[in-house]
C-alpha cells in the first residue's frame, strides 16, 4: 500500500494523499505529498478515524484543481458518493485507496465503526439507550417509554455542535441548528427535543452511518441509532438507499425543483 501511494505521488496521479501517521504514539491524520515522500513509509491506515473526506472537500474548495488521494473504508466510500450526489465534490479529482472496515463484532448491524464496542453502563440502559442497540431492539419499547428514553439522552446535550462539525456530509453554509427561530438560544441543554430532531431530519437521505458523530459526542447520545432510524424511514417511504443511490434523494429541496415522490403502497411506521 505504501508503495502504491508513493507511486501515485511520484507519477502525479495525486498531488497529496490523506492518510494517517503515528506521532508520539497517537495515530493522527497526515497529508503526504511529493515533497515528503520518505514520510509515506510511516503511513498507517488506522486505528484512528477522522473525517478525511470532509478535509479533502475543504482542500478542494480552496484549490479546485488539486488531485487528492485518500484512504477510505466502506463509510468513506459512501461519503464520497453522497458528496458527489449533492454536488459538493467532484469525485474525478479523488483517488481512493480502499482499506478494510474496522474489525468489529458489530458487523452484522454496522458496516464498520467502533473498533471495540464500548460497554454501556447499567444506568444508561435503564434511562436511555445502549448505543449498540439495533433499531428493532429500540422499537420493542412502547412509544411512551421510547420517547422518555430519547428525552433522557437529549437532555445530556452540551450543545458543542460536534455531531455536525465532524459530520463528513454536513456541508451547508447556513445551518438550521443555528437558526434562532427554529431553536431558541438559551441555556443548556439546547431545546429538547427540537435541536436533535432538526438535525435528524437533515440527516435523512444523507447520513452514511459512519458513526463519527457519536464518536464526537461528549454525552454519548446514540446519534447513530437516531439517524439510522431516519434513513430506514427514507428507505421505507421513498425506497432511497442513502450512500449508494446515484441520484439525490427524492425529497430534495435544494435548488428549484422540489420533489416528494412516495414509494407506492406500504404501511410504514414513522415514529422514532
Amino acid at each position, binding site marked *: 500500500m505504501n508503495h502504491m501511494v508513493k507511486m501515485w505521488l511520484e507519477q502525479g496521479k495525486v498531488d497529496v494523499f490523506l492518510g494517517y501517521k503515528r506521532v508520539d504514539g497517537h495515530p493522527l491524520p497526515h497529508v503526504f505529498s511529493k515533497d515528503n515522500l520518505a514520510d509515506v513509509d510511516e503511513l498507517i491506515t488506522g486505528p484512528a478515524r477522522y473525517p478525511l473526506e470532509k478535509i479533502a472537500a475543504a482542500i478542494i474548495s480552496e484549490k479546485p484543481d488539486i488531485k487528492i488521494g485518500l484512504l477510505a473504508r466502506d463509510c468513506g466510500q459512501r461519503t464520497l458518493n453522497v458528496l458527489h450526489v449533492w454536488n459538493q465534490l467532484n469525485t474525478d479529482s479523488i483517488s481512493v485507496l480502499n482499506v478494510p472496515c474496522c474489525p468489529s463484532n458489530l458487523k452484522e448491524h454496522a458496516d464498520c465503526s467502533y473498533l471495540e464496542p464500548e460497554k454501556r453502563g*447499567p444506568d444508561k440502559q435503564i434511562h436511555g439507550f445502549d448505543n449498540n442497540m439495533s433499531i428493532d431492539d429500540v422499537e420493542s419499547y412502547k412509544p411512551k417509554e421510547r420517547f422518555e428514553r430519547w428525552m433522557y439522552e437529549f437532555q445530556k446535550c452540551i*450543545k458543542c455542535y460536534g455531531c455536525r462539525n465532524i459530520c463528513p456530509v454536513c456541508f451547508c453554509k447556513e445551518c438550521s441548528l443555528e437558526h434562532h427561530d427554529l431553536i431558541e438560544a438559551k441555556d443548556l441543554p439546547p431545546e429538547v427535543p427540537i435541536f436533535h430532531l432538526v438535525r435528524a431530519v437533515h440527516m435523512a437521505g444523507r447520513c452514511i452511518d459512519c458513526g463519527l458523530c457519536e464518536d464526537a459526542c461528549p454525552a*454519548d447520545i446514540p446519534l447513530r441509532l437516531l439517524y439510522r432510524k431516519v434513513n430506514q424511514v427514507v428507505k421505507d417511504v421513498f425506497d432511497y438507499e442513502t450512500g449508494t443511490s446515484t441520484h439525490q434523494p427524492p425529497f430534495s429541496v435544494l435548488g428549484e425543483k422540489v420533489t416528494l415522490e412516495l414509494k407506492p403502497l406500504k404501511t410504514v411506521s414513522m415514529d422514532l
Partner: protein
Amino acid sequence: MTNSISEIEGAGCIFVIGSNTTACHPLIARRIFRAKENGAKLIVADPRRIQLSRFADIAVNHRLGSDVALLNGMMHIIIKNNWQANDYIQQRTEGYDDFGKTVEAYTPEKVKDITGIEPRDLEKMAELYATHPPASLLYAMGITQHTTGVDNVKSCCNLALLCGNVGIPSAGVNPLRGQNNVQGACDMGGLPNVLPGYQPISDQDVIKIFSKAWGKSIPSQVGLTITDMIPAILEGRLKALYVIGENPKLSDPDWNHLHHALKELDFLMVQELFLSETAQVADVVFAAASVAEKDGTFTNSERRCMRINKAVEPIGDALQDWDIICRLSTAMGYKMAYDTPEDIFNEITALTPKSYGGMTYERLGINGLQWPCPELDHPGTPYLHKDRFPRPSGKAQFHAIGYRDPAEIPNHEYPYFLTTGRMFAHFHTGTMTRITPKLDAEQRTGYVDIHPNDAAALEIEDGDMTVISSKRGEMEAPARITDSVSPGTLFLPIHFGENPTNVLTNSKAFDPLAKIPEFKVSTVNIKKFS
C-alpha cells in the same frame, strides 16, 4: 484536583457543589454522565437549577453563601450514623476531636434555617456520599469566590477526609480550574509568597537557591496580591503595573473602584491578544501571540503538563510572550536569552525537582505528565496523597470550621441576592469568545436571570430592560425569566463589557486569607427600566 479527570468515571458517588460543570467544564461533565450511567450516585448542590441537577439522585438549591453550614450538616449526619471511616481517620488524620465538636452543633434543623435545605434531603446527601465509596467531590468558583472561600474549601476537605476519600483512586477533592493554565501559573510561582514549585519566599534556603540560579539576590519580603494591589495604587504605593494576558478591568470586583485605581497609576503596561478593556487604558500595549502561534506547555486541572505546538506564525508583528519578556528584561539590564521555550522548561525542571523535575519535552509527548514527577523514570502521579500527606506529621488536618454569613444579606434597600458566573458559549470577560462568530451567535448580549415570581411582582416581561443596582453602582440588562434561579436570587453572566456585572459586586468583601472576592454573593435591587 487530587485525582484525575478520567478517574471520575470510576467513582461510586459524585458530589458536585458550586460548579455548573456542563457549561464551564463540559468535558469533565462528560465523565460525570458516564459515571452516573455506570451506576454512580450523583449529588448536586448549587444555588441554581443547573443542567446536571436533572440527572442527580438528589439536587438541592442552598441559599447563597451557606456552603459551610451545608457541609457541616452532612458531616453531622454522617457521624450520627457512624458512617465515617474510623480506621482512616485514626491512621491518616489529626484534629478530628475539635472538628467533631464543631460539627455536632450543625443539626439538620439548624442547617435548614441557614441553607433552606430540608432535613430529609440533607440526610440523603449525607447517606449517598458516605455509603458509596469512592466518592469524588468536584467544585469550582461556587465554593471559592466567597468571603468564606477558604472555610468552604476546608469544609470540602473535612468531608472527604471523614469518609476516607483522599489518597485513593476515583475519589478526592477536585477543584475544577477555570483557566487553561491557572494551575501552571501557580506552579510557576505566579504568586506573591512562593517561588516556582510552591517553594516559600519565607525560606532562606529557597531564596539562596534561586538567587544563585538567577544570578541576582531575590527579595525575601512577601509581595502584594491582586486584591491588595488596588488599595496600594490608591494609596500611592504602587505606581506601575505590568498586566500579561488578563483583563482585570472587567474581571475584578467593583469596576468603578478599579477604573479609578488604574487611572491613578503612573504607568500601565498590558500584554494582550486584543485591545481589551484594560489595554484600552494602558500606556504601552504589547501585541502577543496566541495559543496556535507558539510553543510551550500548559498544566491542566489534573496537574497534567502538556505541550502546545506552534501551528502558524504570529499575526502581524506580534511576538510570543516569552520573547517579549526577554526583550524587556534585557533592555532593563537583566539579560534573559533563550533560544526556545524548551530551554526555559529545562531551567524550570532544574529548579522544581519535586514536581516538574522528571519532565522533559520529549517525555511529555502528546499525553503529558502529571506532577509530582520527580525523576526521569517517574510515570507521573494520577492521584495525590496515596501514602502520606505533605505535612511534617504526614497526616491530614481536620479543621473545625463554623459557619459565617456572607458579607451582604438582603435588606429592604437591596432585597435580592445576586450571583455571577459563566454561560456555556462564552468565556470569562469574553475577549476571545465574543469575537468568535459562532459563539457570539449563541448569546450576543448580557442578561439577568430572574425567577418568574419576582418578574411578575415587578411586572417585568421576558426581554424587558432592567436596571440592577447595588451600593457600588448600577447597570442595565435585559431580563431572562427562568426558574433556574430561586425566587429572590438573580444571576448575571460576567462576559459582557457593555453590561459590566462587576459594577455591582463588592471589592471590599474578600476572603481574609485567599483574598478572593465574594463574586458569588452580593445584594442588589432590580427594577424595570423606564
